[in-house]
């Protein structure tokens, strides 16, 4: 189906941010569902959010008194990563969807990557280790509680889905917004401007959640593999890839968000998901499944 991914992205974003009352009253949902993590970078302070952001949840536990490790948040990330890797980024993350929509704005010269791409791609691992793990664990206040450093100083998703709606809707929050708000607004503005030129710059260079899920890409159940007997080395997979991945050389690339464009454009059907292909074969179908 054409636009299947866009429909799934929009429906999932609406489903996990379906607390309409929050948008009307300038409040957030505080029921029991909030202890469950959602797979994407979805700020729990978004007025509509029904679940918790896994990166926020990880920092909340690491920053709490007497905790050095989060079995709950890391277990969630391992389970989701093993199941689908960065498929989450391509299909289920609302901030990924936002960047894709911004990228549709016309611009004279779109780039597949920024200069210094190799170095910039390593930034997300630095953000993960430093801002999500080390700083919340080690920089603590007098009662032993650490700040969620990534959420506080970097996360543009929190600004977009939480900060902006709440400052519009709540007079008290609006009057409390100062330098930190301006800094986070600046980061969001940079991400938006870059998204016009480059496809998903935040996912590519900064997202700690994408960094974690990317590690699972080579082994996840929803992974890609290339049938070397069918591959004719035509390069159409790389040409069609918005993340500029040479999939026939690196099917388990940590950057791949499983958008499916390479698979769709492969003239010989060499790209396949081994699990889905086996299920189809078992069910007696001969054609490759679409995801």
């Amino acid at each position, binding site marked *: 189906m054409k636009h299947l991914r866009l429909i799934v992205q929009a429906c999932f974003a609406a489903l996990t941010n379906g607390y309409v009352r929050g948008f009307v009253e300038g409040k957030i949902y505080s029921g029991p569902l909030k202890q469950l993590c959602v797979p994407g970078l979805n700020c729990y302070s978004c007025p509509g959010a029904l679940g918790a952001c896994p990166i926020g949840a990880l920092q909340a536990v690491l920053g709490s008194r007497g905790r050095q490790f989060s079995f709950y948040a890391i277990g969630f990330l391992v389970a989701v990563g093993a199941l689908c890797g960065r498929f989450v980024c391509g299909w289920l993350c609302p901030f990924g969807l936002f960047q894709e929509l911004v990228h549709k704005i016309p611009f004279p010269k779109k780039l597949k990557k920024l200069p210094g791409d190799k170095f910039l791609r390593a930034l997300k691992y630095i953000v993960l280790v430093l801002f999500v793990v080390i700083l919340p664990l080690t920089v603590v206040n007098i009662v032993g509680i650490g700040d969620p450093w990534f959420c*506080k100083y970097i996360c543009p998703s929190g600004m977009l889905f939480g900060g902006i709606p709440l400052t519009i809707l709540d007079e008290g929050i609006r009057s409390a917004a100062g330098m930190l708000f301006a800094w986070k607004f600046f980061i969001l503005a940079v991400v938006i401007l870059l998204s016009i030129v480059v496809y998903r710059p935040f996912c590519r260079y900064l997202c700690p959640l994408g960094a974690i899920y990317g590690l699972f890409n080579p082994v996840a159940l929803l992974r890609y593999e290339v049938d070397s007997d069918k591959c004719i080395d035509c390069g159409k997979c790389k040409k069609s890839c918005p993340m500029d991945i040479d999939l026939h050389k690196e099917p388990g690339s940590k950057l791949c968000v499983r958008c499916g464009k390479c698979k769709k454009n492969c003239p010989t059907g060499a790209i396949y998901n081994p699990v889905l292909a086996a299920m189809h074969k078992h069910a007696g179908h001969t054609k490759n499944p679409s995801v």
Partner: protein
Amino acid sequence: MTRRKAWIAPALLLVGIGMMIYGAMDGEAEIVLRKAATICLECIGVG
């Protein structure tokens, strides 16, 4: 290659689910709920 990898994802999935259950029983879900159920001022650039 595929056959060699086939067991890794299910094994990791089980480990992840086990860790989640252990963490939830150890009170971590409550910590997450406490944080997520109130407006996170740091997240929205105010605190």
